[in-house]
Structure formats: structure tokens, C-alpha cells
């Protein structure tokens, strides 16, 4: 549905996006990840028609984003980064304004407004000016604006940034629901969001694509480690030595200083991705007569994949 072909965009001498190519299929939810300044927002700005490519081509539903800009813009609902809004209008006025500009027939204005108010939870703030609303409510108004004309394609740039944890959960649930019916591009640097909601993930770094695939395939491809957090009461050195001797244990670290005998020691055991050492650890503790106080497993974290791929960022 969306084809990006060798997209390049420069801001003067700065190359923000360098020959990026990818496709988004109909009905797919694509997570667009990258560190700040990687080129995510710039790419979105080209797709939505805010700026033209310096080089390359973007096709939305086989329509060129530059040549057939008006038609492309009709198909897209966009929530820009920073969610710009008109502060002197109230949500109802604003949504009606957007509907008029999108060519929605006036007979549909009220029912659609009602639906948006319901979906985005705006009923309590309808008569307040947007300037008076909290960030969470403003974000919901921005989301409502993007959806009100029922577009096939939704592009959301950092939709949950700055929201409190409750609001984040609500917005994420909404996004997940939307993803069922629409093609959605979610631009973010919050990794857990992507893991939960996306069919596919693109990681961009310094203007170039660093990874492209499903969350599972990326996890499999990455050389990450599973981690096992254990707390064992027993002679520290012996415990450590036995843990290290476990088949499949790649590394054993002690996050805290466990010194002396019979003091509960905390250890982190790293193993190859997919190797589950919980039973061996349990058996080890039982056979030696030690006490197992905590056993917790953590699979390869998306954060690690992300950091590996964008590692040179902070150098």
C-alpha cells in the first residue's frame, strides 16, 4: 500500500534520510523505530506530503506523493509529532473543522463527531478550549482528528509521548484496536509499544534502515542472551562456581556484592537465546541443599536489539 523507493531527504547540507526503501502492506501495523534524530519524522513528513523528497519516490496506493499529492492526502490520517492543535477552538469545533476540510458531507459531521468522542474518551472536555486541556486530552483530540474521516492509512508519530502511565495504556489499547482494520505506521522510540502492537518493525538509524522484520525474526537474528535472575542462600563461591559450570551458562554475574558464607547471593546467569536454565538451576540448588529465594527469567530484550543496531549513536 505504501512503497518508499530510495527516499533521500536533505535539509541543506544535512542528510536526514539516505536512500531508504521499504514497503507497508495493506492492513499491516508497522513500527518505525529509531533514536532521536534518526530520520523517522522526516520520513513521515514526506509520506504525508508535508515536504517533497530530495530524491527517490514514495507511492501511496500507487499514487505519487508529489504528483498526486491531493489524492494521497485524502487517504491518510496523520498525527504529527508534538500534536499541533488550535488552542482557541474546542474539540467539537475542531473536529468539525477538520471534517469540512476533508470533504466529509455535513450530514455526517455529528455522527462522526459522536463516534470519535466515544472512541477517544472526550465526552468530558467537549466544551473546553483545547488550550485548557491537559496533555493527555490533547493527544486524544489529535488522534480523533487523524481518524475522524475514517482513512485507510493512519500515521502516528510518537502518539504516547508525555502521557502518564494510565493514559498510555488507554492510547495503546486504542491503537491496537485500530490496527485490526487499518494500515498503520507507528513512529516511536518506546520499544515496548512496538513489541505489543506491531506486525513488523523497521529500525532506522542515522537516516538508513538498520533492520526490517517481524519482532520475532529480529529477536532470532540478534545475538542477544536470555537472562536468569536468581537469589540463592548458600556458600557464595561454591554457588557461583556451580552456576558457572551449568551447561549452557555463558556468563554468571553478581549484581550485588555477595560475601561470606550463608548470605543470600544474587546472580544473573546469561545463556544463549532460547536456552532455558530454570530447571537445571532448581535441581542444582535442591541437590546441594541450598535455598532458592528467587528465580526469574528474562528473554532477549528488544532494547538490546535496538541498542546493538544503533550502537554507534552515542560515540
Amino acid at each position: 500500500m505504501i512503497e518508499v523507493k530510495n527516499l533521500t531527504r536533505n535539509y541543506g547540507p544535512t542528510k536526514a534520510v539516505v536512500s531508504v526503501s521499504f514497503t507497508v502492506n495493506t492492513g499491516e501495523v508497522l513500527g518505525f523505530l529509531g533514536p532521536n534524530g534518526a530520520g523517522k519524522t522526516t520520513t513521515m513528513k514526506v509520506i504525508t506530503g508535508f515536504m517533497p523528497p530530495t530524491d527517490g519516490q514514495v507511492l501511496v496506493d500507487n499514487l505519487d506523493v508529489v504528483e498526486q499529492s491531493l489524492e494521497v492526502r485524502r487517504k491518510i490520517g496523520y498525527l504529527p509529532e508534538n500534536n499541533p492543535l488550535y488552542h482557541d477552538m474546542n474539540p467539537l469545533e475542531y473536529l468539525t473543522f477538520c471534517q469540512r476540510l476533508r470533504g466529509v458531507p455535513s450530514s455526517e459531521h455529528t455522527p462522526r463527531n459522536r463516534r470519535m468522542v466515544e472512541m477517544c474518551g472526550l465526552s468530558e472536555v467537549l466544551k473546553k478550549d483545547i488550550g485548557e486541556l491537559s496533555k493527555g486530552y490533547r493527544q486524544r483530540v489529535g488522534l480523533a482528528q487523524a481518524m475522524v474521516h475514517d482513512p485507510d492509512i493512519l500515521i502516528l508519530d510518537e502518539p504516547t509521548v508525555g502521557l502518564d502511565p494510565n493514559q498510555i495504556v488507554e492510547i495503546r489499547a486504542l491503537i491496537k484496536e485500530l490496527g485490526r482494520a487499518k494500515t498503520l505506521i507507528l513512529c516511536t522510540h518506546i520499544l515496548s509499544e512496538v513489541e505489543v502492537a506491531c506486525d513488523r518493525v523497521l529500525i532506522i538509524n542515522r537516516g538508513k534502515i538498520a533492520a526490517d522484520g517481524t519482532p520475532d525474526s529480529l529477536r532470532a537474528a540478534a545475538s542477544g542472551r536470555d537472562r536468569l535472575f536468581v537469589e540463592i542462600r548458600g556458600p557464595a563461591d561454591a554457588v557461583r562456581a556451580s552456576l558457572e559450570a551449568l551447561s549452557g551458562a555463558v556468563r554468571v554475574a553478581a549484581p550485588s556484592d555477595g560475601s561470606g558464607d550463608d548470605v543470600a547471593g544474587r546472580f544473573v546467569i546469561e545463556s544463549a537465546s532460547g536456552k532455558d536454565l530454570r530447571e537445571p538451576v532448581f535441581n542444582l540448588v535442591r541437590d546441594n541443599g541450598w535455598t532458592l529465594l528467587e528465580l526469574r527469567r528474562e528473554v532477549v530484550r528488544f532494547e538490546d536489539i535496538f541498542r546493538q543496531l544503533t550502537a554507534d549513536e552515542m560515540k
Partner: protein
Amino acid sequence: MFANALTFAQKELRSFFNSPVAYVILTLFLLICGWFFAAGLFLVGQADMRDLFSSIIPIAYLFFIPAITMRLISEEKKSGTLELLVTLPVRDAEIILGKYLATLGLLASALVLSFAYPMTLAWLGDPDGGALVGGYLGLFLMGAGYLAIGLFTSGLTQNQIVAFISGFMLIFVFFMLDKVLVFFPGPVATVLEYLSVSYHFENIARGVVDTRDLIYYLSMIVVFLFLAMRTMESRRWR
């Protein structure tokens, strides 16, 4: 198409009148005009709008018109709402036209409110109807031209103050053109005179509506509105 322009116009007008802007501008404008009108009337004893038309209001325009237009595009750039507007399925022309129509509306309200003066004159004496109509038409066209200039300068920057000052300066140039003619050689002076706003205004104010004067104002409006469109970083220009 045109409907979108009207939607924008309506939104901007609502914005003007929801904030102190419109009220402050209209009040101050009318106060200043009222003062000069009344002062002149009693001093001279003549039913005369000529001063108001030829000097007071044009000078007032220098300040008030950039004040009306200064936030129109610069605010959108600064708050980021321009990104939203430009990604909606509307043409740049519709956005600019809508904003421009709103400013014309404000200008028209100011001029209509000032009808109090000719009505006072009509009650006191016997003013020349033709000159009045000509004067107001000229003022409206002059204001319309200046508003287009102001809209353009608003698009040049994110900063409203800079928009105001550059609008003021550019309008001032057009305003001054016919007053500096004496410094220029013959042929250049003729060209400058044709380009000056006051020259065409005087023509219309005399009661003679010549197409050359209309074309002048229309060209000014079209050129500056086109330039204003250009400032919106549209996708058409790389």
C-alpha cells in the same frame, strides 16, 4: 474548493474575534480616526472627509494592517499547525485565500464602522456622495493591497514581531513612493508614481474609477498572495 477557503476564513475570523486582537484594533483605529475627524471638523467648519481619507487613514494603515496580518502564517509555523494544514487535502491557495478573506472582513468592518463620520456629515451639512463612495472604495482597495503584503511578510518568519516590522517596512515603501518623486529624474519618477499607492488612491477618491487603478490594486493583491503561498514551504517546490 472555494468552500475550503470559506472554512478557513470562518476559522480565522472566529480567531480574531475570540481574542482581544480584533477589538483592540477596531477600537484604536476608530478612536484615532474619530479624533482627527472631530478636531478638523470644528477647526475648519467644513464638512470634509478629505483629510481623513488622504492622510489619516493611510497612515493608520501603516500600523494597523501589519498588526492584523502579523500572526496569520507566522503563528501557524511557530505552533506547528502549518504541518497539519499542509497535510490536509486542501490546496495552498485555499489556505491563503481563506486567511486573506478573513482580513478583508476585518478591514470591511473597520471601514463600515467608520461610516459614522459621513453620516454625521450628512446630518450636519451636504457632503458630496460621489467623493464619499470614491474615497471609501479607494480606502478599501488600498487596505486590500496592504493586507496582501502583510500576509506575505507573515509567511516569511515564525516571529510575529519580525512579521509586523517587515510588513510595516514594505507597506511604507509603497506608501512613500509618491512622496519622494522630486528626488528622481523624469522617466523614473513617472514609473515610481505609477507604482505608488497614493497616486491610484487619489484617482479613485476623485470619483473616477479607472480600470488602470483597479488593475494596479488587483496586481498588487495577486502578486503578494502568490508570494505568500510560496512561503508555506509547499511540496511543489523542492
